[in-house]
């Protein structure tokens, strides 16, 4: 009995290792910059009822948590008993997988001596799937690209060439899309092979017993962690810039008896542009925020999600119904953790960070390659604003929350597309003041290599609504979008970069934490010395600095 406890634990950790191996294969074989340099992917193992048992430690909250609820939908169309070795299934349905068409989820069944024992799933962001490209301008889903309902990607080892041909034909970057899809297939195959080896080694013929143990232990630990919050209802409200009009996000967090329910009643209705956030993605980012604060160490699996539930009225921006446009759903999704943290801050005083700047991810499009030949290309960039200050630490500079994808090196970016990043530096004075200051945003200045016009897709938040401080901390600076020639640009939608001009992105800073008058003079002087805080701002934000010998 006791021996089997330890054996169970060892098998559990082995499942996590298999997922790491699966992710590693995908990472190495992937093509698009988003996957390979930034790790925009997730990988996990599920039982044959579609419950996630283990997951690789990679990726974004969006992928990690949406994938967790995606597999069960595959099983409805393809019941496990109909699956065969060498099969792989695919979808990019935003409501049944990861929230927009760019994310493709692939499920690979794993077999042991002819019987299905588990399922591997992986999600990656494809660089282009047609439509208007990755941006917020579409008015409905049909404008956003090719839709792939649940279907066979590989059937008993034979790739669905018809589907691959359609995918290629519908992408501006067919080669990258094809390569990424093959990378996921390879990773799933590797996972399935390894799982059967491990089960053989441990003499197990099904994951039933181990799975039950994993889910039970995890759920128990998660409920225990939640029970540190006093029961009650915690409400928060935040305003965001939106596309055509500002958006109100409202949530009531009901904590009772080791479980948490989130109710988004009162949140604004859907946008007529593509920033609507399907419920799985809403759920993914909301649960993520709770986990960060309440139970960061507990492994991510179905059991960890059991104590959470969510509801939102139909056709609110956090629960749009088909066929709403959803391509840039991260714009709303990335705001949700700050909304939820605001509730948690009431329940866990002194333990919750201030609000953060987010990632700004423009897609830049050009029509000529390095040699000046006509060729349309699309490049997806990732830039990070400043993180909110933490209760005992400054916010991280140029490092975003909630999503934390690796930015693409300037040298790699300039080798991948005919662009020049003239400036990529921290943005002084952008972090909110506080005993601990918010993380600084960044300033980006990007133009074409040579005299060619460019276009870019803006989908940026916190241009009119700043990241708020907490417990007396000040808000971070708002973001700004303009051309170097001076013209102000919109924060959402496709816009032109005229010949010889550059876009200038000033990314928002994180909110501050605690009373600014308590900030150490040494810390203020250091920021001033390093040019992260101008002398004027230091005097204005920190009255005690103005009167000190450092000033």
């Amino acid at each position, binding site marked *: 009995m*006791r021996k089997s*406890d*330890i054996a169970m*634990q*060892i098998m*559990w*950790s082995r499942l996590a*290792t298999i997922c*790491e*191996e699966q992710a*590693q*294969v995908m990472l*190495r*074989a*992937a*093509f698009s910059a988003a996957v*390979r340099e930034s790790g925009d992917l997730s990988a996990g193992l599920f039982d044959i009822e579609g419950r996630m048992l283990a997951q690789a430690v990679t990726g*974004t909250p969006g992928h990690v948590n949406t994938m967790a609820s995606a597999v069960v939908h595959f099983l409805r169309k393809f019941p496990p008993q109909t699956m065969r070795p060498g099969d792989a299934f695919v979808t990019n349905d935003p409501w049944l997988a990861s929230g927009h068409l760019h994310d493709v989820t692939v499920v690979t069944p794993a077999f042991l001596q002819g019987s299905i024992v588990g399922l591997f799933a992986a999600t990656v962001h494809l660089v282009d799937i047609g439509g208007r490209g990755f941006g917020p301008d579409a008015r409905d889903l049909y404008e956003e690209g090719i839709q792939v309902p649940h279907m066979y990607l590989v059937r008993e080892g034979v790739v669905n060439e018809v589907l691959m041909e359609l995918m290629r034909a519908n992408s501006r*970057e067919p*080669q*990258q899309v*094809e*390569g990424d899809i*093959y990378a996921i297939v*390879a990773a799933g*195959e590797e996972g399935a092979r390894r799982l059967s080896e491990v089960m053989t080694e441990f003499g197990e013929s099904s994951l039933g017993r181990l799975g039950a143990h994993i889910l039970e232990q995890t759920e128990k*630990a998660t409920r225990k962690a939640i029970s540190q919050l006093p029961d009650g209802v915690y409400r928060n409200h935040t305003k965001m810039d939106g596309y055509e009009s500002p958006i109100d996000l409202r949530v009531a967090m009901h904590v009772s008896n080791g479980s948490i329910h989130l109710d988004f009643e009162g949140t604004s209705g859907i946008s007529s542009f593509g920033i609507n956030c399907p419920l799985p993605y809403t759920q993914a980012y909301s649960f*993520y925020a709770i*986990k*960060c604060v309440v139970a*960061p*160490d*507990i492994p991510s699996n179905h059991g960890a999600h059991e104590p959470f539930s969510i509801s939102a009225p139909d056709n609110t921006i956090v629960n749009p119904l088909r066929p709403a446009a959803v391509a840039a759903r991260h714009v709303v999704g990335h705001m949700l953790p700050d909304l939820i943290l605001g509730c948690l801050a009431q329940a866990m005083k002194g333990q919750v*960070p201030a609000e953060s700047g987010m990632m700004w991810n423009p897609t830049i499009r050009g029509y000529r390659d*390095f040699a000046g030949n006509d060729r349309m290309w699309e490049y997806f960039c990732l*830039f*990070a604003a400043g993180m909110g200050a933490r209760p*005992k*630490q400054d916010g*991280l500079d*140029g*490092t975003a929350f909630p999503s*934390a*994808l690796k*930015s693409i*090196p*300037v*040298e790699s970016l300039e*080798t*991948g597309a*005919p662009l*020049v*990043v*003239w*400036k*990529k*530096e*921290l943005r002084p004075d952008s972090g909110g003041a506080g005993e601990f200051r918010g993380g600084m945003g960044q300033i980006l200045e990007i133009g074409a290599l040579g005299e060619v016009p460019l276009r870019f897709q803006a989908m940026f938040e916190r241009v009119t609504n700043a990241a708020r401080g907490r417990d007396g901390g000040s808000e971070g600076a708002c973001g700004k979008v303009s051309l170097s020639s001076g013209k102000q640009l919109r924060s959402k939608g496709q816009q032109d970069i005229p010949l010889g001009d550059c876009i200038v992105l000033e990314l928002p800073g994180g909110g501050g934490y605690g009373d600014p008058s308590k900030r150490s003079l040494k810390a203020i002087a250091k920021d001033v*010395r390093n040019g*992260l805080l101008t002398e004027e701002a230091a005097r204005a934000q920190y009255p005690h600095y103005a009167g000190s010998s450092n000033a």
Partner: protein
Amino acid sequence: MAAEAAKALGGTSRLGVDIGGTFTDAALLVGSKVFSTKVLTTHDAPERGVLQSIDKVLADASMKLSEVDIFIHGTTLATNALIERKGAKIAMLTTEGARDVVEVALSYRFDLFDLTIDLPTPLVERSLRLPIRERIGYRGRTLVPLNEEDILRCVERIREENIESLAICFLHSFENDAHEKRAREIIRQHLPDLPVSISSEVAGEIREYERFTTTTANAYVQPLMAAYLDRLEQRLQESGLKAPFLLMLSDGGLTDVGTAKKYPIRLVESGPAGGAMFAAAIARQEKLGDVVSFDMGGTTAKICMINSGEPETARDFEVARVYRFKKGSGLPLRVPVINMVEIGAGGGSIAHRDSLGRISVGPESAGSQPGPAAYGRGGTKPTVSDADLVLGRINPAGFAGGRMALDLDAARKAISLVGDTGGLSADEAAAGIIEVVEENMASAARVHAIECGKSIISRTLVAFGGAAPLHAAGVARKIGMGSFVVPPSAGVGSAVGFFFSPIAFELATSRHKLLAEISTEDLNDLLASMESQVLPLVEKVARSAKLYRRYRCSMRYVGQGHEIEVEIPLPLPKSDISGHLKELFEEKYQLVYGRKLPGAEVEALSWALWIGTASPALDAVDAPDTTYEPSPKSTRRIYDTYSYDWIECAVYWREDLRPGAVLAGPAVIEESETTTFVPGGMSARILGTGAIFCTELTESRAAEEAREVIHA
């Protein structure tokens, strides 16, 4: 062994000293006999410990320093300076607009759920990262010429701030180093004594964060390392050293003091590299084919893939991780290194229960102070060594050759802390701890093998370092490997490994091109220019020894981000070089990922040239003619982690076992520095060299191995 080594390096008595965090190890090879010793590292003046260890080991061998034919040194000093932030005050000249490259890093939170993480602090603070107006772009094109007045202004600033070392880091300098070189020239005119590191020389490859960070790290440790090496060289000469003084590099090559002073960052992992070279030498000597090197000490375990007697190498490494052993929490270095994975699993690793009640081991370590509870130096936390003692695998009386008695009661008490919370007895908890730490190491080895694109099951594990022989069987079984070997001198493996390393240097540079654009002529030109930089560094040390060249190219399908490094045989073919390269790339790609991508274009990114001598070899020793069954010194009850029960186990003293001895597990083989555990189901054989070679007895393992071979 002497013949081949003598040819390469001119001598038969070799002295090696490795400075580690706790101990400074010396090894002396005379003919085929190894003398070794350990002294405590003297952190205030490391050369003192070096000389102490040398005196001791020379006395053991009754020799004088003047009789030594070669002296080889490895040190963690550069690493420690980076971890403890005790390097020089440095400044950096960098492209205007790119001032925060080393600070913003990759904008990556290496732990998605932990909101309290901090990222590594850059080695040069923002106020001393001085922007220069200049810009090189794609393929080395000059977009903005170098503004020399900006540099002159910086000269003043550098003087005012008493800067001790300077890094010059411009964007795209890996393709066009003109601005960096010109900037250095101007600085030298005005500040002739200031050490200057330029990014195109220190780490001439694409990706600015890694290149710039490596360059600042080189600048940061340079004054300290130069001063240390000068002092040591002088002290050694005063003590009579007449032989060449060589240094171990992170990639397993040897170089002289001059080159080490210029590129001190290349010494950063020299100790562990020595360990891998040791395992490689053993693999060659015992004709083991592909092996896995497994070095487990008090704090960490290091695992490395060794292919046909050569360690796997790489050009990326992370030093000074601030957050346990988490990837992404340290400073990335783009230097040639032996590619190994290091995890927080050692004899001193501490066990506890996590929030889910699971037993978790490491990465926190009790180190040598206070050490495991059994050491009786005030440690109360349960460690891996305590678990080994509770299970009877370690002899409480015989530890460290009997120099140190162990406190079994204290160990049991500590281990009970882990047992009680989960309702396990101390024995069961100890077994659980061992299982978990071995699982951690096996997992790390597996994932590492995938990262290297190598199969692992069919290999032999080469175990050395104080704790490895105890855990080699468990780790090998969990990976599915059928055998492991414990070589002689396993306790000072790194220092001994220095003796079997080539004199060598590697240089890498990035040239981004589609294969279709590459001509044999271009490549030969590039090769010649790299050779003109590398060859003098090697020739001045290797003198007349025969030199070998390895040329490697990192390639990928256009659009991919991860390159595969492929060895390019020399000389290059005269025609269709692109077709040739593509063939080599796709062959390797197929091997690693199981498929090719028909129709996709291939591009080359980086080129690396390695020039070096052959590695000195240990002479093979014939297998003994006859075998015999030795009788055990005694028996001891040990707790079996497979049956979860106490069983009677044979105990042998390693020095009693002659070549040809064959014994069956369960057994322990004790020696002064370590203990080898042979579980039931395995048998151990003593090879001609004295190495312990253990294999699985069962058929099923053999069958699994065969399957793996077919699969691969």
